[in-house]
């Protein structure tokens, strides 16, 4: 007699269910198995299946228990030192995008840039908090308005840390020689926004034709200069989505086949003006799946230069690989304000970009200190209570819990409180959809799908990624 590591289940369709345990091992089965599990009447072959797949142990300390505990432990990573910092040297911006009501100040506004004193304190804060490696993401406002501050931070990091990497998030409305000089270094990456066709991009961002033309000219130029150190994030509005094929064409035109598909999230007042309803959600989900299928169709025959959606690949890795936990929005425990922090234009420290937006819209102050007085451990600690999904009564019944994450800041931002039952949160609904979709692909018998899955996971050949208990 063996003991089965506790399972959770979810219906994938009328007749098939996915089962998984807390360590993240999963398989597909049916209602008959569910009934046997519920009645504690597993057959000999059920037990053999579960034992062979290391999902049941025959005695304490046996190989299966050890592998289960090891997986569980790998998914419970302790907090690590600060290594990813978002810096906002200025809040001023030269564009006025329709989504961005909160994280910008007018181009000529005063008092929205780091002072000399702030810069000094940012440096000393970093030297105290970062151990060996650092990734710096410059955000805004438009950070390129202060190339001088960025250069000083870059020089400082290169001198102080073993390894530095810089990502400049910019609208690329101005590309001057000083900027070209900065991005010529191999440790500098540029991330911009590209919403799709020039027409859509103009509607959502650049407003005038001349600004739009200037952006596309700059975008091409930077691409020629730094190749794949340039990336672009689309901002997609469920109410105004492009055709998947056109959308991918635009990205392909700039040699960008790895795309991160996210619908725009409105904050503060804009949320009231743009409520996201259930309908929008299903429109978005249809668009998302259509994009993925379009990518899969285009991947036939490809081996190295393939299309992928960043988040779906991450989800697949989280499902299959314990310890794959580098994404701050998709991990649990989510150590908020530990390895990842944002330092705002005024020197205040936040656990994430979304947290600073909420402070700005006056929803709630989630700052965890500032570079002058240092971290406020108490405020940081207060965020951890809901950052561990295994303790949530809903997540702990969900087969995707081990692979999913917890993001109390997102819950707060969208729902005004952090204790909303999980099924009612946007976070849960969004992730259930992608996990279900990932399962559909994993268990699909279509060779095209299996070919793309192998590409996304870096496998030499397609293999069965999911087990089935008949």
């Amino acid at each position, binding site marked *: 007699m063996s003991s089965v590591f506790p399972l959770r289940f979810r219906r994938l369709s009328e007749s098939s269910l996915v089962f998984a345990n807390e360590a993240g*091992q999963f398989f597909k089965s049916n209602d008959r198995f569910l009934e046997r599990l519920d009645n504690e009447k597993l057959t000999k072959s059920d037990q053999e299946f579960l034992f*062979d*797949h*290391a999902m049941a142990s025959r005695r304490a*300390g*046996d*190989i*299966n*228990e*050890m*592998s289960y505990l*090891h*997986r569980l432990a*790998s998914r419970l990573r302790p907090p690590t030192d600060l290594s990813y910092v978002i810096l906002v040297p200025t809040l001023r911006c030269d564009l006025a995008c329709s989504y961005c009501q909160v994280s910008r100040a007018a181009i000529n506004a005063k008092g929205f840039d780091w002072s000399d004193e702030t810069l000094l304190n940012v440096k000393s804060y970093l030297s105290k908090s970062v151990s060996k490696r650092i990734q710096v993401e410059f955000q805004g406002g438009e950070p390129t308005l202060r190339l001088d501050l960025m250069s000083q931070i870059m020089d400082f990091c290169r001198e102080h840390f073993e390894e530095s990497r810089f990502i400049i998030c910019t609208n690329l409305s101005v590309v001057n020689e000083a900027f070209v000089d900065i991005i010529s270094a191999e440790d500098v990456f540029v991330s911009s926004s590209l919403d799709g066709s020039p027409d859509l991009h103009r509607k959502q961002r650049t407003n005038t034709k001349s600004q739009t033309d200037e952006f596309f000219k700059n975008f091409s130029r930077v691409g020629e200069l730094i190749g794949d150190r340039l990336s672009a994030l689309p901002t997609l509005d469920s109410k105004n989505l492009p055709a998947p094929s056109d959308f991918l064409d635009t990205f392909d035109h700039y040699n960008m086949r790895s795309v991160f598909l996210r619908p725009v999230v409105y904050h503060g007042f804009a949320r009231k003006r743009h409520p996201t309803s259930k309908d929008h959600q299903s429109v978005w989900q249809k668009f998302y799946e259509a994009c993925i299928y379009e990518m899969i169709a285009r991947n036939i025959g490809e*081996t190295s230069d393939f299309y992928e959606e960043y988040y779906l690949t991450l989800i697949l*890795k989280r499902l*299959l*690989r*314990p*310890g*794959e936990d580098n994404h701050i929005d998709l991990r649990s425990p989510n150590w908020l304000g530990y390895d990842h922090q944002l330092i705002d234009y005024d020197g205040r420290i936040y656990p994430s970009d979304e947290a600073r937006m909420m402070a700005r819209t006056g929803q709630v102050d989630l700052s965890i200190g500032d570079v002058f007085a240092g971290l406020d451990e108490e405020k940081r600690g207060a965020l951890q209570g809901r950052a561990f999904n295994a303790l949530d009564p809903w997540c702990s019944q969900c087969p995707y819990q081990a692979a999913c994450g917890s993001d109390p800041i997102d819950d707060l931002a969208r729902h005004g409180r952090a204790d909303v039952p999980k099924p009612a949160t946007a976070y849960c609904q969004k992730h259930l959809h992608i996990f279900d979709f990932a399962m559909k692909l994993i268990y699909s018998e279509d060779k095209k799908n299996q070919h793309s899955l*192998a590409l996304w*996971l*870096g*496998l*030499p*050949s*397609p*293999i069965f*990624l999911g087990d089935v208990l008949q």
Partner: protein
Amino acid sequence: MIELSLPANFSDSSHLPFIAKLSRIDGHQTATLVGEIGDELMFQFQDLTISIVQPVGEDIIGDIVFVEPAYNRVSRWIRERSDHNTLLVTERCDQLCIMCSQPPKKSHIDMFTFMEQACMLAPQNMMIGFSGGEPLLYKEQLFALLEKVHTVRPDLKFHVLTNAQHFEEDDVERLRQTAFKSVLWGVPLYASDPSTHDSIVGKIGAFEQLVTSLPIMARAGLQIELRSVLLKQNYHEFEQLSRFISSKLPFVSVWAIMQLERIGFAKNRWFEQFVDHSENSEPLMAAVSVAKSVGLDISLYNIPYCTVPQKLRGFLSQSISDWKRSFPADCEKCSVKSICTGFFEWHSTLEDYKYGGVI
């Protein structure tokens, strides 16, 4: 090929054996260079004068050597400029693998004192291997050596090649100590089918013992490198082996898959044992894919670059120990020679592989 054992002459052949570091300057336990006559190097160790013929194209200064005046021999135990230094703990073994590259012997000479001295003299941050025979037949002495060396030389790393038949519950507490964090344990596993594994290692019950030992090692927090050799006897089961490892052994640090070495027992049984992966790469591809899908680190060893499909090349390691490595003449023209693992000196030919050749 690099000479590991060098003929030497001594001023006093009755001098007892000892460990020394060949050096230009006088120091702790050094045999100091005092003269060069042609290609002959003269060293002084206390009252003893040693003369060694310098091997062609090689620098032996800095090496840590085991000196045996009675046998007119100097053995290069730790070569300063190599990443492949392995000390032989014993030639005894409790398994008898069908392809063993170093067939076991019944006799055993205890060299722990010398091995310990050699480690103490090793260059900074070096990785030193222990092999056999089965090193853990002398578990107590080996553990004690690792602990003692670690207290003086915490910079050193070790690799112990063991059949893992001798770990016990009672070892866990001891192995959890920091000394053992510097050790990578290489453990062979040839099949997930107990009878296949047992028949390859020549010991009934070996698989069952492994399945008991591996969780003990994991609980002690040991770093484990699983090692599987491609053989006619297990190649068709390689995907299953990978599924077994992927589901039951997530705690191993790395899985090393290696092609057969034509030496030892494998030399005379080559055609019953060697499997040409270039002719049918499917089992290897599937095994790598399964392991990679769960995020396991995989390295392919002793596999020439040109003999595997493009998709597997990213997993190849340049691995053959420098002193055993060579290339056939044809490879001189090849554009990827510098990243290829090459061939074993004693069998440097592409003839075994149906597909492959200059790239």
